[in-house]
């Protein structure tokens, strides 16, 4: 993959979505959360680009893929500053930012080793108790997990 280091050839896809401003160390988590391992359309991603805000950032370009807001907001846990460009006919027709959702189901692992969700096959559920510095409260054990200790399935 050849990339001009300043511009990531956003216009190179005809129709689709570009996800920018992903912290580099969250790239694979984002891919996993969005289920991109399973898609069949073209996907290009790059990582460890310099970013003033994030240090090192990653970018994902997806041909012919568009997301519902609820789905894309799931990545806010690991990429709260991510930005989306929606491409139609080689042009950016819409820009979106992700929003931290009020609840999180089945993505994150509870940080409490004594929680029932870490002992039995249960889909985790959390209420988001802080959106700035993301912190989630387990529906089961009622303990709070902050972004530093958050593990994604």
């Amino acid at each position, binding site marked *: 993959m050849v990339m001009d280091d300043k511009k990531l050839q956003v216009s190179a896809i005809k129709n689709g979505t570009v996800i920018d401003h992903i912290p580099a160390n969250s790239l694979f988590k984002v891919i996993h959360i969005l289920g991109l391992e399973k898609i069949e359309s073209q996907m290009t991603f790059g990582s460890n680009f310099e970013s003033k805000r994030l240090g090192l950032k990653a970018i994902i370009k997806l041909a012919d893929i568009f997301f519902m807001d609820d789905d894309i907001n799931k990545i806010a846990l690991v990429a709260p500053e991510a930005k989306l460009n929606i491409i139609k006919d080689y042009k950016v027709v819409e820009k979106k930012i992700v929003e931290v959702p009020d609840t999180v189901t089945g993505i994150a692992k509870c940080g409490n080793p*004594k*929680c*029932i*969700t870490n002992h039995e096959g*249960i889909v985790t559920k959390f209420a988001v108790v802080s959106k700035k510095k993301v912190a989630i409260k387990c529906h089961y054990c*009622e303990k709070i997990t902050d972004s530093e200790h958050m593990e994604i399935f």
Partner: protein
Amino acid sequence: MENKNLVSITDYSKEEIFEILDLAADFEKNPNQNLLDNKVIATLFFEPSTRTRLSFESAISRLGGKYIGFTDASSSSVSKGESLKDTIMTVANYSDMIIMRHPIEGSARWASEVSRVPVVNAGDGANQHPTQTLLDLYSIRKTQGTLDNLDIFFVGDLKYGRTVHSLLQAMAMFNTTYHFISPKELRIPDEYKLFLDRKGLKYHEHREFDGIISDADIIYMTRIQRERFSDPMEYEKTKNSYVLKNGMLDNTKSNMKVLHPLPRVNEIDTDVDENEKAYYFTQALNGVYTRQAIITHILGLKK
């Protein structure tokens, strides 16, 4: 809102808490009522807790009900590796209500989601023990005539003591002023201080116990356990600093009462027992009435 289960004290509104406390007062006047005729209650103790189990079994017996269950996990199919879900779904077929104690946090919530009969949490690890909280609330209201605007002093292990955490949350509905007295290693966790900050409630933290309790309406004592200390020397140094002695009660308010979730080890001198301000044994008796109220309220047997 009527709850089908009792998993966490925070699921209950002020109104519903009062309904249960009023029912408990009725059972105190008239403890033997055959409301559980032909009902079977399962008491599943995945870890032993003799005191809580006996209190529940007494409550069920006074209501004329029958109970089935086990007293620790080693005597049940759990020791053969059965999942909690399977145990609960099976026992729900045999009973009208499940009362459970389990060492894993969140287990009661999970059980309430897979059970077709109501679930009452009798303690899930360090998380919740809501029937204890309700009996504490009952004891406070009975002795103070109100739950509003009280000064409550929590003493001892405020880090791991789940009875402290649940009571603290419940009392936040009543404009309580909190005083936290503990060794440094066992001080109240920040998340509870943040919770009180958000509610705009006053709290004070102290390292010293003696000489600061003259404003107390309630002193809530807890046990300090050796295994909670990373440094055994720290335990030896602090264990005697948080002991309530009879002489310390001289300059306290006349309405003041000493509560303790029991069992006690040495954190309350036995000569306090004779003091009229000692209330912990009556508190344990109130537990039976409160549990009668919880069971009949959830099963819709008494309004």
